[in-house]
């Protein structure tokens, strides 16, 4: 059963079409992450689901019920915002109870729900405080609590962790994950942070310019991106792209400059191989060096040009047949500028894109 179904949704702000004929089905209990760069329409889509924006076209179903014209409060959703959006004049308890009071829920029930939410989120000691007297992490917990007490089936998160510092972000990320496993309700989570997306999501919807480009499980998004944009967007440091051409056949190979890579181990998608201009993408972390490189189907010698130690690992920049190339090495590896290095990778782990359409081959 689908928890949320979005059919042919379009949204226009005046002349600008921000969401374009979008379709999306989300299973019951699924954690779906909307991932995309800033301004691609993620928040707009979430606001549409919440009922805070009127659609220009299309329908939204929540739990098989057409909610397209329903008020936000009647949709059975709870929402958490990036800026917390706590009511500044109310205590934490007031913030949590506001929605319940509006719904006319009896006092005893309100107290019970607040008690439970506070327990889950570890904010029992903060209930009497005003938001101004809370830290960023505590505020976001309260904001999550406000969605929690509503006892709804669907949670909407709009970049809930973006205002927090790195450590808190990591902590709360784990907590949201735990919360999802405990409550088992449907969650739509908007972020531009790929780590959040990869770690939290059951499925990721990668968005660009108001379209959903790819909707799949995180490992597929990472390993088999359907186009070059997604390949470059996911992963840090980002994927290496080498421009060349593909020569199809029983033993297909990728040719660029004077180099020829044997691609027979590559798993071609749908329409299969085709001759012509092709981009080969290989992730810096998939490149082996030294002895390990020797065992790889493809290996070449390169000269180290720039070394960027980052602690846990070291980023090496170089050129391969005149094209820029980065690789990630272990942080303990001793490597210096000017070193000769044998690097290698497995064609099974690369991605090939048709150069003009940028679609995966």
């Amino acid at each position, binding site marked *: 059963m689908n928890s949320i179904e979005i059919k042919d949704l379009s949204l226009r702000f005046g002349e600008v079409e921000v969401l374009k004929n979008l379709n999306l089905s989300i299973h019951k209990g699924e954690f779906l992450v909307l991932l995309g760069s800033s301004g691609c329409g993620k928040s707009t889509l979430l606001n549409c689901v919440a009922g805070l924006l009127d659609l220009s076209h299309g329908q939204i179903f929540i739990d098989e019920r057409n909610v397209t014209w329903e008020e936000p409060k009647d949709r059975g959703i709870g929402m958490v915002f990036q800026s917390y959006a706590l009511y500044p004049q109310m205590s934490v308890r007031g913030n949590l109870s506001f929605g319940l009071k*509006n719904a006319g829920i009896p006092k005893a029930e309100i107290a019970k729900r607040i008690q439970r939410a506070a327990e889950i989120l570890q904010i029992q000691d903060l209930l009497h405080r005003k938001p101004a007297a809370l830290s960023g992490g505590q505020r976001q917990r309260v904001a999550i609590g406000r969605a929690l007490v509503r006892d709804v089936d669907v949670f909407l998160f709009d970049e809930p962790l973006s205002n927090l510092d790195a450590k808190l972000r990591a902590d709360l990320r784990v907590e949201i994950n735990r919360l999802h496993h405990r409550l088992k309700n449907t969650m739509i989570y908007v972020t531009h942070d790929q780590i959040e997306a990869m770690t939290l999501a059951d499925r990721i919807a990668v968005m660009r310019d108001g379209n959903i480009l790819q909707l799949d499980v995180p490992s597929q998004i990472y390993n088999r991106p359907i186009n070059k944009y997604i390949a470059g967007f996911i992963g840090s440091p980002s994927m290496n792209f080498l421009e060349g051409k593909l020569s199809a056949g029983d033993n297909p190979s990728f040719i660029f400059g004077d180099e020829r890579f044997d691609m027979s181990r590559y798993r071609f998608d749908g329409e299969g191989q085709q001759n012509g201009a092709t981009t080969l993408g290989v992730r810096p972390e998939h490149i082996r060096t030294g002895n390990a490189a020797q065992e790889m189907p493809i290996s070449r010698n390169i000269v180290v040009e720039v070394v960027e130690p980052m602690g846990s690992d070291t980023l090496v920049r170089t050129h391969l047949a005149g094209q820029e190339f980065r690789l990630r090495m272990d942080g303990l590896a001793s490597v210096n500028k000017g070193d000769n290095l044998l690097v290698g990778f497995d064609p099974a782990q690369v991605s090939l894109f048709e150069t003009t359409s940028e679609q995966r081959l």
Partner: protein
Amino acid sequence: MTSELLHDQQKPRTYSFDARPHEPAGAKPAKRLSPARIMIYSLLFVATLYYLLPLYVMVMTSLKGLPEIRLGNIFSPPMKLTFAPWVKAWDGACTGLYCEGLKVGFWNSIKITVPSTIVSIAVASVNGYALTNWKFKGSEVFFAILIFGSFIPYQVMLFPLVIITRELGIFGSLSGIVFIHTIFGMPILTLLFRNYFMSLPPELFKAARVDGAGFWRIFLVILVPMSLPIFAVALILQVTGIWNDFLFGLVFAGLKNFPMTVQLNNIVNATQGVKEYNVNMAAALLTGLVPLSIYFISGKLFVRGIAAGAVKG
């Protein structure tokens, strides 16, 4: 190796001990008065004098008897202190036909200012809220027209408004003048409130809608409590503006309800009898007292409102 380390650690300490006295360290010393500073302060001093002198003369004159005033030393303090002019200005000065002093006008002004201020702020704040958060078709046009209204000199509208209020049957009455003040306060106050509500995070409004609060509940329970500073500003604007108003009071309030300013004018411009400068001064001071105290009182409220309304930490 160990001794070397120790030695190294001690070195910087010795350095810091003979830091030269002129090397910058600790709190930055206060600057001595530079010529530019002296210029600025003397200029400010002169400006202060310039504005305070008339006030000084008024207070002094209002505390003197008429014979002393006739001597002409307007700057000298009273030789024989008297509060009679103040009493007379309040209680017995002649305003046209009646000789009941300013107190009648004072109460009239209160009766005009209080409802006008409340009604105009109430209407304008709801206006600003609706224009910010509940955009309707044509709300931008509506707002533009409203703002355009604030550029039209109001003397132009005087006569049409006389006819309108007459047709409504409220010309020359208390409700008539309240109506007029509410109308004329609308553009600037709506602009004020709209701009303030625009500056609040829109997520707050969204969160309240998800929480099931309606138009009035969001406004009264969420927005108003966090908008005290702007209400204080509107209060100052309206109270001083309406209290100091002369023209509308004269035209629309009707004889019975003339505000203090109109009566002050009648006292000061009375043509018969001797000119009682001391009474006139006392009357003028009395009339100015209300706006002045509003500045002091709501100034505090203003600051407190800002402190209480802190949205982000």
